């Protein structure tokens, strides 16, 4: 008896022990390290918008529109927070009746998300705010195309609708288990959801609103340097944070981000240096850096540093020509080149992710490892996003235009939006 008992006891103890281990592996448990990194990443991505994008854009407009430009970004951060709280998170990340396009309403008002709820190894609350910061920056980026002339009231309503009707569905399709996720489109950190999305919306908005009366040169590229630097720094939260853990994938994402960014930045600057302008400019190297950051975004968890080098190189060169030559040829007034950098850079990155993906890095193979089909898939992702965003953005703008003027009056534009729309000015 005793023997048996002891035997059972032993086996029990061992079983208990291994079960515990097993459970630890299966049942999600909060990891404080991952949580620490994701709390940090969330605030970094918020910092990319305020003050990052605000300053990057604020430095590039004329002196009479600085306040207006930064106010737009800041206000968008607030608006999108509310739409996310009310509806956005729920329809992006829950299952819905039309699940291939959009999620459901079960978590509207962030209902039922308790302190203990987890998403992977981090609290769901952290996941909610981390994703929110992506929704914010995507909307904030669009403004660059319409600064110096959009009517603030129109922008206000446009963003409410756009964040719900465009951002959430695209987010759901790519990350929330919708159509593109199912197809196997790779988008590590938001090349499609954030950059192609905002870039295309920006292009449409620029065309619908029409050109500025009299564009002037940037008022203060040093403000843009601050903004651009904070974008770079914060982008580590964006890309390395998209590992949703503090692990090797996050580390590699950070490293390839750095390599691609530096490469694209130098590529742009050197092109300028040898172009007819003959001078390497601050705005040039900043623009290249952003182009690199954008292009590496979908690829960050899938490529090696050398893959990143080539992606950065391509982004620097292609976006340079998109902003300086092609735009001029086409003649639309995307004031701060949101399409030329985020749209074009996002597409370059999405396609090249399909080329340079390496199995050993992110579990997916690209063309260089013989999987040419991935490139086709990536094209699919691009096309769906471009089409959906372009059409919906157009509709929303026309709809908003029914209720309020989309553009500031000529008088207001001439006086500058700072004074005419916000009653403030920088002395």
């Amino acid at each position, binding site marked *: 008896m005793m023997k048996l008992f002891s035997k059972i006891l032993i086996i029990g103890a061992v079983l208990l022990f291994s079960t515990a281990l097993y459970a630890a592996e299966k049942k999600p448990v909060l990891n404080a390290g991952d949580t620490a990194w994701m709390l940090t990443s969330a605030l970094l991505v918020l910092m990319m918008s305020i003050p990052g994008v605000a300053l990057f854009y604020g430095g590039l407009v004329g002196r009479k529109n600085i306040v207006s430009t930064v106010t737009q970004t800041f206000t968008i951060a607030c608006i999108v927070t509310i739409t996310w709280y009310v509806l956005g998170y729920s329809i992006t990340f829950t299952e819905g009746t039309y699940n291939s396009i959009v999620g459901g309403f079960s978590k509207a008002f962030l209902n039922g998300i308790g302190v203990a709820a987890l998403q992977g190894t981090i609290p769901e609350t952290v996941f909610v705010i981390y994703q929110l910061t992506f929704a914010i920056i995507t909307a904030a980026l669009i403004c660059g195309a319409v600064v110096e002339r959009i009517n603030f009231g129109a922008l206000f309503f446009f963003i409410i609708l756009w964040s719900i009707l465009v951002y959430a569905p695209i987010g759901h399709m790519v990350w929330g288990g919708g159509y593109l996720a199912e197809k196997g489109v790779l988008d590590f950190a938001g090349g499609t959801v954030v950059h192609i999305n905002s870039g295309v919306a920006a292009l449409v908005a620029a065309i619908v609103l029409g050109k500025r009366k009299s*564009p*002037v*040169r940037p008022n203060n590229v040093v403000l843009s340097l601050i903004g651009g630097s904070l974008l770079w720094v914060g982008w580590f939260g964006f890309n390395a944070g998209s590992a949703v853990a503090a692990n090797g994938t996050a580390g590699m994402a950070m490293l390839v981000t750095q390599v691609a960014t530096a490469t694209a930045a130098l590529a742009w600057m050197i092109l*300028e240096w040898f172009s007819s302008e003959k001078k390497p400019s601050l705005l040039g190297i900043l*623009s290249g850096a952003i182009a690199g950051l954008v292009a590496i975004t979908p690829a960050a968890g899938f490529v090696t540093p050398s893959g990143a080098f080539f992606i950065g190189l391509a982004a620097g060169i292609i976006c340079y020509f998109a*902003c300086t030559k092609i735009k001029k040829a086409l003649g639309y007034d995307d004031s701060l*080149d949101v399409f030329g950098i985020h749209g074009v850079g996002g597409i370059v990155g999405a396609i090249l992710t399909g080329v340079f993906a390496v199995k050993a890095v992110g579990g997916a193979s690209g063309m260089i490892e013989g999987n040419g089909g991935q490139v086709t898939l990536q094209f699919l992702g691009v096309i769906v996003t471009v089409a959906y965003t372009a059409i919906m953005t157009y509709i929303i703008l026309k709809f908003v235009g029914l209720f309020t003027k989309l553009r500031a009056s000529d008088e207001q534009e001439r006086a500058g939006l700072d004074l005419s729309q916000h009653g403030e000015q920088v002395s």
Partner: protein
Amino acid sequence: MVYEGSSMKLITAIVKPEQADNVKRALSKIGVHGLTMTEVKGYGRQKGHTEFYRGSEYEVAFLPKTKLEVAVSSKNFKKVLDTIQKTAKTGKIGDGKIFVTSLSAVVRIRTGEKGEKAI
């Protein structure tokens, strides 16, 4: 007006910003103890330049210049004029101009003094 017929002059010189200090020092030496300076932009034979921002050209026609204004009595007029011309000169295009107008009155605000005493 009692001040009519005054022969005080206002010398207005548009000079290169980097020469302004030079002029100022020279004027101090010859006993000119008042001067007003304004940052202006000028356009003349010296053409501006073109700045490029992401490939877009912005023509900057006007270059930074410094405007110096000195009120002088008739007796100092010639000396001051020559000093400014000499010390502002670099010999390169864009050196600027000197304009002279007649002052019909000058008042020192603090004391209410008028005319040459007030300069």
